[in-house]
């Protein structure tokens, strides 16, 4: 199959049962869906399950895709539903926490507490990445999902809202709270890492 075909054409061919077009869609999106599952669940095994189930549904239901939204929005919505179902089927790893808006009193004194100097290479350390995973897993799902879609996958507020079926305002509020939670805790983590 020609690699430079527009996505609409690939989808149209896939809807007619063209195996090469279906394979192309799978290869185009498998990496993103795998990462979505990995960040959502923190488990490689669960990420693989989510990946397989998402594409099984895609192959089965691609005829129902009417092109009212972009293909990736449709696919991400399937993946997110599969992922959230997977999360619900497992015991919660962490106590539910409630997140508030940033403490704006504290924001006004941020300058007094710069982050310690660190090298971004720190993310190459698997142990550090494990700690990042644990941190994101402490975020309740409704915040984690928004952070993953908006900040890690670079989706727009509108697409994120469509996928999660929440209002754009809700998306923005959840993102702000998620970012603030991660920032606060990452700051503590980095300070601990940098201590001699």
């Amino acid at each position: 199959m020609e690699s430079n075909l527009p996505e609409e054409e690939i989808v149209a061919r896939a809807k007619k049962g063209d195996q090469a077009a279906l394979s192309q869609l799978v290869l185009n999106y498998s990496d993103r869906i795998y990462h979505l599952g990995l960040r959502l669940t923190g488990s490689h095994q669960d990420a693989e399950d989510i990946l397989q189930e998402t594409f099984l549904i895609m192959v089965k239901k691609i005829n129902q895709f009417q092109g009212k939204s972009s293909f990736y929005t449709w696919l991400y919505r399937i993946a997110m539903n599969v992922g959230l179902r997977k999360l619900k089927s497992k015991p919660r790893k962490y106590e539910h926490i409630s997140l508030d808006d940033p403490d704006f009193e504290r924001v006004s004194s941020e300058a007094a507490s710069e982050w310690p100097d660190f090298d971004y290479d720190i993310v190459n350390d698997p142990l550090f990445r494990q700690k990042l995973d644990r941190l994101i897993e402490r975020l309740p799902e409704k915040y984690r999902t928004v952070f993953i879609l908006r900040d890690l996958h670079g989706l727009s507020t509108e697409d994120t809202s469509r996928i999660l079926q929440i209002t754009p305002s809700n998306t923005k509020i959840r993102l702000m709270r998620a970012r603030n939670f991660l920032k606060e805790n990452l700051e503590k983590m980095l300070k601990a890492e940098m201590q001699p």
Partner: protein
Amino acid sequence: MKLDEELLREICEYMGSDLNSAPCKIIRDHMEACPNCEVYINKIKKTIEIYRLADQCEEIPDKVTRNLLTCLKLDDPSQTCKK
């Protein structure tokens, strides 16, 4: 402080205002002179950057892609899902 246009747009979007509106002008004027906001915003940016970089370190294993194509019968129709 160097004004971050993209961020300003996001803040104004959040408030439901356009960039030339009065609330946005207030934010713009404040951000241009506020070191505290700058530190706060930089920390948020670094947080996102660290998570993005960590994501890039985790590649999808080849075996997972192969299993997926097998499961979908897109490589060999006689095979079924397995891990």
